[in-house]
């Protein structure tokens, strides 16, 4: 039930934003996040953006387990 999907911010109207992913558009609340900008990727749950996605950090920790000891 805590499922959430990443979508991209296309339009901001006050406390609401139009977000899009694979052609699907949806209007969601953005009042649970600070400073949402156009083009941001956000995680949508129950009609609200609940987290911003940071692509840069995505693979860091993940890669470590594949490559070797994490806790050396």
């Amino acid at each position, binding site marked *: *039930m*805590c*499922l*959430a999907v990443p979508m991209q911010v296309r339009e901001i109207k006050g406390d609401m934003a139009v977000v899009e992913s694979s052609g699907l558009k949806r209007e*969601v*609340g953005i*009042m*649970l*996040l*600070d400073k949402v900008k156009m083009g941001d990727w956000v*995680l949508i*749950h*129950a*009609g*609200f953006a*609940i*987290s911003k*996605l*940071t*692509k840069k*950090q*995505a693979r*860091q*920790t*993940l*890669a*470590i*387990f*594949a490559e070797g*000891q*994490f*806790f050396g």
Partner: protein
Amino acid sequence: MAKTTPLTRMAERLLHLPVPGGAKIMEVCGSHTVAIRRFGVQRLLPAGVKLVSGPGCPVCVTPDLFIDEAVALARQGVIVASFGDMLRVPGSRSSLERERAAGGDIRAVYSPLDALRLAEDSGRETVFLAVGFETTAPAIAVAALLAVEKKLANFSLLTSLRLVPPALKALVSESSGLAGFLLPGHVSAIIGRQAYGFLAASRLPGVIAGFHAEDIISSLGLLLEMHNKGIYEIVNNYRRVVRDEGNERSRSVLAEVFTPSDAEWRGLGSIPASGLVLRPAFAALDARQRFTIHADSAPRRKGCRCGDVLRGLIDPPACPLFNRSCRPDHPVGPCMVSSEGSCSAWVTYG
């Protein structure tokens, strides 16, 4: 020879990681349960390692009484709006789906904002079933604030919100033999890494994980490496979504509208400060104060072992009804109703 991708390398490493003495790991979140069974991660576990499901499916941990209350409200003629997952959950005598077939005005909504809109458009008494964990509760808190702002006099909440850390605390203290936790990704996006400090104090490691195969495989690997080395830390392995400090804005909205209270969990009983109820300032939005609810409850169903499944004490097939009289198309208990319930995930993905 098959090409080795990072994912297969990861899977190999997990499978061959020696775990002396074995370990029992709990995946707390229902979405993790589904992902594990769907990707077949249970077949990648090192010898002696066992994964058990925890109380991380809101639909599953909601007690029968809550459904009975919602059914009673529906019979009073109010609009009952709910996330779709709740409709098929059996209460002690009926379900919302059955009430709908009998003429009750039950609406499945995607967001609490949809429920708010229903109240505005219909002008009729509309009760939203406020079910969920920390991921969902902030959205409901915003709906409550908007209802006040719009002076909506016909909108209320029937609350059954639950908090994850107190339930984990209760599980840890009952000497469950657990060696660590795969921690829920989206709950953690709100509460942050800091919320699990008590695990380290109980000498248990935890890894916050995402929902792709590589998220889960690498997180299990990290968890088992910590277990092997006696390191008791909380690692955030879902950093593309979860900030260590969580989402402060969501937490402050939550604190403005709700306050913790003792709450009943299926299988776990009453857990101190593990639920959220409306603060006195929002009493007008509390369906339990607005309506007199005569829940028509019956003694607990016999046979269903959902409670033991939720505590990681048994695997679903140990329930005598599993895949016999209890199946996804004919569920007896909530762990089979919810697509994120363990029993359902075991039948669906084998």
